[in-house]
C-alpha cells in the first residue's frame, strides 16, 4: 500500500531565551493511505507540532515530509497554502466555524467554483444528511449545539475529499457521550472514503476506537506504534 505520510530525519526546535529547544526528532516514520491513527502523548510532547509540520503550517528545520507523494518540506509558504487547500482537511477542538456565515456557507468556504450551484447544494445536502444535520444548513454556528458545530467542521474538512485529515483534539470540548459519537462518525466517514486520518488526542478511551495508535515520547522524541486492534 502506498504511503500517505512519509517522514525522514524530521527535526523541529523552538527558540526559548535565545536557545533552541528541540520538540521533534523523528528519524523515520510513515503512514499508509487509508490508515486511521490516534496520536497519543503527554502535553508538550510535540503531537500538535507534528500535526502542523505534516499539514504544512510549520516549516521543518531539518529532514523531509512527503504527503501523497509531494515533498511539502521543500515548498514555500504560498505553495504549502495551495497544497493544504487541495490535499488536507482539518478538524479542531474548537471547531473554528466563522460566526458570520451559516453552516452551509462555512462548508462552501472550502469548496471550489468548479461545481454548479445546484450541484454544490445537492452535495452539501447529502453531507448534512450523512452527519445527521438535515435542515440545519442555514443555521449560524451560535444556533447549533457544540456537537452539531463539530459535525459541520467535519463536513468542511471532508467535502473536497482530501486524501489526508488532520484532527487536533476534535472531541476535546465535547461531553463524553457526544465525544464518542463524533469520533465514531469521523472514523466511519474516513473509512468509507478510504481517507487517511491522523488524530491528536489525550483521551485513551477514545484512542481505542482507532485501529492504530502512536505514542509520542517527549524524552526520546521518537514514535512507537501500538496496534490496539486488528482493524485498519
Amino acid at each position, binding site marked *: 500500500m502506498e504511503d500517505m505520510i512519509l517522514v525522514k530525519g524530521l527535526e523541529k526546535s523552538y527558540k526559548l531565551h535565545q536557545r533552541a529547544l528541540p520538540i521533534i526528532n523523528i528519524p523515520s516514520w510513515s503512514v499508509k493511505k487509508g490508515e486511521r491513527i490516534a496520536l497519543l502523548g503527554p502535553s508538550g510532547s510535540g503531537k*500538535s507540532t507534528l500535526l*502542523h509540520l505534516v*499539514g504544512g*503550517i*510549520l516549516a521543518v528545520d531539518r529532514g523531509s515530509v512527503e504527503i501523497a507523494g509531494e515533498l511539502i518540506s521543500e515548498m514555500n509558504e*504560498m505553495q504549502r*497554502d*495551495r*497544497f*493544504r*487547500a*487541495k490535499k488536507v482537511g*482539518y478538524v*479542531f477542538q474548537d471547531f*473554528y466555524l*466563522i*460566526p*458570520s*456565515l451559516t453552516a452551509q*456557507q462555512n462548508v*462552501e*468556504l*472550502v*469548496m471550489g467554483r468548479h461545481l454548479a450551484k445546484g450541484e454544490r447544494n445537492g452535495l452539501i445536502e447529502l453531507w448534512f444528511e450523512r452527519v445527521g444535520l438535515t435542515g440545519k444548513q442555514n443555521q449560524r454556528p451560535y444556533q447549533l449545539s457544540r456537537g452539531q458545530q463539530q459535525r459541520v467542521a467535519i463536513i*468542511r474538512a471532508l467535502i473536497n475529499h482530501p486524501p489526508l485529515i488532520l484532527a*487536533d483534539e476534535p472531541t476535546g470540548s465535547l461531553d463524553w457521550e457526544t465525544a464518542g459519537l463524533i469520533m465514531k462518525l469521523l472514523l466511519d466517514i474516513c473509512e468509507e472514503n478510504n481517507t487517511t486520518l491522523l488524530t491528536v488526542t489525550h483521551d485513551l478511551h477514545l484512542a481505542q476506537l482507532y485501529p492504530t495508535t502512536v505514542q509520542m515520547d517527549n524524552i526520546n522524541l521518537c514514535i512507537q506504534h501500538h496496534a490496539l486492534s486488528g482493524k485498519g
Partner: protein
Amino acid sequence: MNGWKYIWNNIRYRSLLSALTVFAVMITVALFVILLMSKDSFEHGAQKGYGPFELVIGADGSDSQLVLNTFYRVGVPTGNVPLELLSAIENSEYTDVAFGMTTGDNYNGYPIVGVSPAYFATRYEDRHLKDGHLYAALGEVTVGYAVAKELGIRVGDQFSGAHGLVEHVELDHEGNEEDEHNSFHYKVVGILPKLNNADDRTVFTRLENAWAIHNDEDSAKEITSIIVKPHSLLGIHSLKQQFDAMDNVQAVYSSKAVADVLNVVDTGSQLLMIVMSICVLLAMAALLLALTASIQERKRDVGLLRLIGKSKVYILSTLIAEGMALATIGLVAGLVLGHIAGAVISDSLFIQAGVQLQAFQIATYEWLLIVVTLSLALLASFGPAIKVYRTDALTLFRN
C-alpha cells in the same frame, strides 16, 4: 464561496457597527453635498445677479454696499443721488440703457423697489409673468415669485408698505403701529415667474411711488442707484471715469464688486470646508475603528482562512473591500440624502436666504468629494488589512 458574499455576511453580522460606520460617512457626505450645492448656488446667483448691468452708479460709500443693495437687496443703500443724474447717464453715448432705482421701504421684510417696468424687458427679455401684468399706474405693484409664495399674495390683493429695508414695526404711545405707510396702499397687479435671483424676493413698483409716498417735491427728487447697460465693454470704463469724478457719486463695476464679495464669502466657505474636512476625517476614523475592532474579533477567522488555504492576497483584498463597501454604501446614501435634503429645503432656503439650491444637479466639486471619500476609505482600510495580512494559520492555535 464568492468573496462578496463573505464580505456582505461580515457586514451583516456586525450590523450595529456597520450601520454606525455607514451612518457617520452618510451624514458627513450629505452635509458636504449641501454645502457644495449652497456654494455653487451662491456663486451662480451672485454671478448672474446683476444681469446685463455692468455698471452701478450711486452715492459715495462702500462699492460692495452699493452693489449688494442694488442687485441683491442686501443691507441699506449708500445714500441717494439726484434724479438729474439718470438723465445725464441716459444721454451718454456709451449707455445702451440705464434705470434709476429707489429702495428703502419694505412689505413684511421684502424690499419695495421702484424701477421702470422697462427693466424687466431689458433683463429678462421674453419671460412671461406667472400671473397678471407689470405695474403701470401709481400704486400698482408686481411681486416676485418668492414673495407671492411666502405671503400667499394673489393678483388683486392690496397692502401698505413700511419704511426701512429691514422689517420692523414700531408702536406709538397709543399702541398703534408707527411708521407704516398706511395712507398709501399698493395693489398687486402681477406676479413674476421664478427668476432664481433677488428679484424673486422683491416687490416692484414705479419709481414715482417713492416720491409720492414721501411727498417729495420735484426739486428734491432722488434715487438710490442707477444701473447701466453699456453699449460696449469699452464704454464702461469711460462711463465709470466720467461719473466717478463727480462729487458724492461713485461708479462701480458690478462684476468687480461681486468678485470682491465672493472672495470674502469664499474665505468663509473655505473655513467651513476645513471644518467639514475634519468631519470627513472623523468619519474615516470611525471606519478605521470599526475595521480594527472587527479584525481583533476576526483574528481566528483569518487564521482559519489561512489554514484552509486562502491566500494572503485574498484575505487582504476581502478586508479592504469590506472597508470600501461600507464607505461606498455611506457615500452613495450620503449623496442621495444630500440631494434629497437639498430639494426639501430648497424653497425655504431661497425664501429665507435667497440661495436657490439646484438639488438635482451635480455640484461642481462633488466628484472631488467622491474621490477624497473613497481615497480616505482605502487608506483607512489598508492599515487594518495589512495587520491581518501578516496573520498566519498558527494564530488559530495560539491563546
